[in-house]
């Protein structure tokens, strides 16, 4: 069943036989639902100051070193570490620290050795590539190309020539040392090469034909040699991947062990110990209470004492907030979390945010065709992220892809309502012809929306509805908190809200009368007057509750009133941006349509329309998204979302 409020929590405090605390920690990790607190923070009557904590920071640091080392090896091999699941926690878990250390040391050494060879090969390649570049670019003066032979019969001649010199046999690979050779080197290395050649009895050939032939041969040979070096270099580079994948099986085992061990240590760092017992405490969602109790009882073989405390009875530690939101609404959960965490016990804002965000986007970016493009982008890019977890997150991130699917649907729905299909009216609109109204071409006499002002009116009404929903949510939250003063006498409470609602009605009547009169009904006068004076009572009521000195804070009251009148007005008018964006969308599409009409040929027309649609999708889509976000954050959330909550962070395998 969907819970429209944050999940109810309970505080679990356990005293367990110390010898079984490891086992209990593993069990807690397996279940992964406890958000641990520092027992010393609890308002209890026992002196805990002399009790020791379960694990030191140094222990955790040491394990982090293991984790970083193994992660870096995975990264070198271009593979992701495995995801650890609760099934990976065996019955009698143990981390083989020494074996792991030896294993990682061994692989690290192998990788370091490969890197060293890679470096040498890279240097060699760059040296020859430089010669090759000079050859290709005709900068021969930087090179020494020698044709000749050796007068001394030396074995292993190739290795006696300095490595910065390319050694070739002229025409024949099977020649003897005295047959013609070509030696290519950089002129700047001559100082080191010449003495060696003298020692080997090098004699320059005076055969002009050989000299001429050598140039072409060197050119080809250098290119081939560079390709060969590059290939060799890549081969060495691939050895890293081979080593990592060859060892990945064992690495996965150790990675899981390290992860589990680290998390168990993390859990145990929340324990405090006496000589024979371990004590820990943490928050658990009420629906998980039974499960965790069974686990603790089983793992401690019943040698434990468990105490449950209701959230409302706990003092001194914040109650974490967990929202029971369906996974499908994850993109909107992220939007809410990005803003802040709601207070414990308040309304879960995700559901209403989903609805408000999608309606706002649909109104600003209403087009079936363009919405479908967004949907396709979201779907296919999202799929490619899922298929390739190593893929770098681009401008359109995997999270954005999920959101785009929703926004694509919203945009398509909006497009169907307003009859817009890539800017054209392919099917009649289900509501009214937005495009026609903006361009002044709509001729539906039955429609209530006939000009831009009517569109602006719709968005103001929409804004009013959003703000009222926000206020109602605030009243629900305050009533649940039993904060009666703010519920009745705050600017976002019933008093402020009544002023807004009655004021909105008054403003409508004023506009309808041609900006001449406000409603004459006493409801208008009392509806505004009573709350205005009621707000004056906020300070005395607060003083009475807090048992402080009685006071009437005129300044506070005056500022509140100013904020109510100016704030609500600007908040409501702010929703006109929805109409503004919608109108801009239509105008842009119309502009591209007119531009395409100026092009005589069909291909040109299509090209203009394609570019136009692409631009509108990119620019308008982005601004509609940003404006929808802004309206949610600043006009909707500010009415009920205090953001004073603390997120629920249980220690589990995703920690």
């Amino acid at each position, binding site marked *: 069943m969907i819970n429209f409020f944050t999940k109810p929590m309970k505080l679990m405090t356990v005293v367990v036989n110390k010898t079984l605390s490891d086992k209990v920690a593993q069990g807690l990790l397996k279940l992964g639902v406890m958000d641990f607190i520092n027992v010393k923070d609890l308002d209890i009557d026992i002196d805990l100051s002399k009790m020791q904590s379960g694990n030191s920071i140094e222990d955790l640091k040491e394990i982090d070193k293991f984790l970083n080392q193994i992660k*870096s090896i995975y990264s070198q091999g271009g593979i992701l570490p495995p995801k650890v699941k609760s099934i990976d926690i065996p019955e009698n878990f143990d981390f083989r620290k020494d074996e792991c250390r030896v294993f990682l040391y061994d692989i690290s050494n192998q990788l370091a050795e*490969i890197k060293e060879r*890679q470096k040498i090969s890279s240097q060699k390649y760059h040296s020859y590539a430089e010669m090759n570049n000079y050859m290709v670019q005709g900068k021969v003066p930087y090179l020494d190309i020698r044709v000749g032979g050796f007068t001394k019969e030396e074995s292993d001649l190739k290795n006696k020539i300095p490595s*910065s010199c390319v050694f070739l046999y002229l025409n024949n690979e099977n020649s003897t040392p005295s047959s013609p050779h070509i030696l290519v080197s950089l002129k700047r*290395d001559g100082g080191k090469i010449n003495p060696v050649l003298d020692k080997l009895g090098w004699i320059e050939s005076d055969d002009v034909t050989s000299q001429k032939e050598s140039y072409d041969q060197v050119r080809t040979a250098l290119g081939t040699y560079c390709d060969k070096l590059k290939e060799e270099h890549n081969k060495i*580079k691939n050895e890293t991947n081979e080593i990592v994948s060859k060892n990945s099986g064992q690495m996965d085992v150790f990675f899981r062990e390290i992860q589990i061990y680290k998390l168990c240590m993390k859990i145990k760092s929340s324990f405090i110990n006496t000589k024979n017992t371990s004590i820990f405490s943490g928050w658990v969602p009420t629906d998980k209470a039974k499960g965790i109790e069974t686990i603790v009882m089983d793992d401690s073989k019943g040698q434990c004492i468990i105490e449950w405390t209701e959230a409302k009875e706990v003092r001194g530690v914040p109650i974490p907030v967990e929202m029971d939101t369906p996974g499908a609404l994850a993109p909107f959960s992220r939007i809410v979390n990005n803003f802040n965490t709601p207070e414990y016990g308040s309304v879960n804002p995700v559901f209403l945010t989903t609805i408000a965000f999608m309606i706002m986007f649909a109104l600003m970016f209403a087009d079936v065709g363009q919405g479908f493009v967004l949907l396709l982008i979201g779907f296919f890019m999202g799929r490619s992220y899922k298929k390739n977890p190593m893929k770098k997150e681009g401008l359109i991130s995997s999270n954005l892809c999920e959101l785009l699917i929703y926004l694509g649907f919203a945009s398509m729905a909006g497009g169907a309502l307003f009859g817009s299909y890539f800017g054209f009216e392919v099917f009649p609109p289900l509501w009214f012809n937005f495009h026609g109204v903006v361009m002044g071409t709509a001729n539906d006499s039955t429609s209530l929306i006939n000009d831009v002002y009517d569109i602006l009116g719709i968005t103001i009404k929409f804004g009013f509805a959003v703000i009222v929903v926000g206020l109602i949510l605030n009243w629900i939250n305050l009533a649940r908190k039993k904060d009666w003063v703010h519920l009745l006498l705050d600017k976002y409470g019933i008093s402020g809200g009544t002023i807004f609602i009655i004021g909105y009605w008054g403003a409508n009547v004023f506009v309808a009368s041609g900006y001449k009169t406000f409603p004459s009904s006493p409801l208008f006068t009392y509806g505004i007057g009573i709350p205005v004076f009621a707000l004056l009572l906020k300070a005395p009521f607060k003083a009475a509750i807090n048992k402080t000195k009685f006071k009437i804070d005129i300044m506070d009251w005056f500022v509140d009133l100013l904020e109510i009148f100016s704030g609500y007005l600007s908040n409501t008018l702010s929703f006109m941006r929805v109409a503004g964006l919608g109108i801009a969308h239509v105008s842009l599409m119309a502009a591209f349509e007119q531009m395409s009409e100026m092009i005589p040929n069909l291909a040109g027309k299509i090209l203009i329309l394609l570019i136009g649609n692409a631009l509108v999708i990119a620019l308008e889509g982005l601004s509609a998204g940003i404006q929808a976000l802004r309206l949610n954050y600043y006009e909707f959330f500010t009415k009920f979302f205090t953001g004073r909550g603390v997120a629920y962070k249980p220690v589990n395998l995703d920690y």
Partner: protein
Amino acid sequence: MKSALTQYGFLNAKLRARMANLDESHIIDKMLDAPTLIQAIEVLRENPDYKKIATIYDESGDIQLIEKSLVDNEVGMRKELSKYLEDYAKDFSDLLIMKLEINNLKNIIRIWYDNILLGGNVGYRMNYVIKYKILNDIPWEALINAVNWEEIIKALKDTCYFEAVNRHSSEDIRKNGLVYFEMEMDVDYYKKLLDSLKHMSKRDRMVATDVLGVDLNIKNILNIIRYGKYYDIPHEKLYSLLLPGGSLYDSPNFKKSFKNKNVEEFLIKRFSKYDLESIMEATDKSELLRRSLKLEKELAEHRKNVYKKILRGYPFTIGLIMAYCFVYEKFNNSIQVILNGKYYGWDRDRIMEVV
């Protein structure tokens, strides 16, 4: 001429954000903590600005290529800064780019010297120098492939560095090494830099003079120790090679102390908060080097504090550009030191000494 706010307003926000990013990324700490070179590289991979560097290592396994890439980044960064600036600020910023050009030129000539004159097997190091245009059109390839000093002079004929190289003959270089040449290059550069201050607004000139003054004092103290004590360059010659500016150089007593050949006593007295006495008393060269390194560290800390002070002060000045270049350069140097330290298996403390 643009107002200070228009000139530096945008850059101020941009550079401060970047500096905060560098600070908050804790790259240096994490790299120092990494037990192996490969893990230190992984730290770089986690940061989008340095990810490319990790890829270079994946491709080549060569930390010298990483060092080159860091210099490339620095050139790119300074060029980017220059694009945002106008008038004298742009000229000054171009001079900051010129410093990197001079470093590259010195580097090439050092490799040339080791390779050609000393016969070392270091020609491959030419693959790690910059060969593209940094600020001026320098024929890098001709320089890289020069086989004698005359070819270096010829290659630099149509550049602003011609005079600096042409002052030295092949024989001078062979006899004295590159010390005088490099010091003169620095002198020329700082003259240009100090010259550029004349065109600045009053506030910019004050800030730049303060910062450069500290920089010049530090460099001059270290040069006196390094070249006077370590290389035993005669006093008269040494004075002509000092960088022209800063409160130390401009002080008449300093000049007098050189004449009276008691500059060491003068420095000990003037900079009493540093333990210069122990350095001046060192007879053993390795001991002198060790103590100088300690002093260098203290002076570097002092310079760091000067830049910190700038960042705390009025935000719309040229000081911000100087501070950013300093922070960025220091950051990149630290990365280079750590990578080299990890490569040679140094422990954290030893690397920290150099960082």
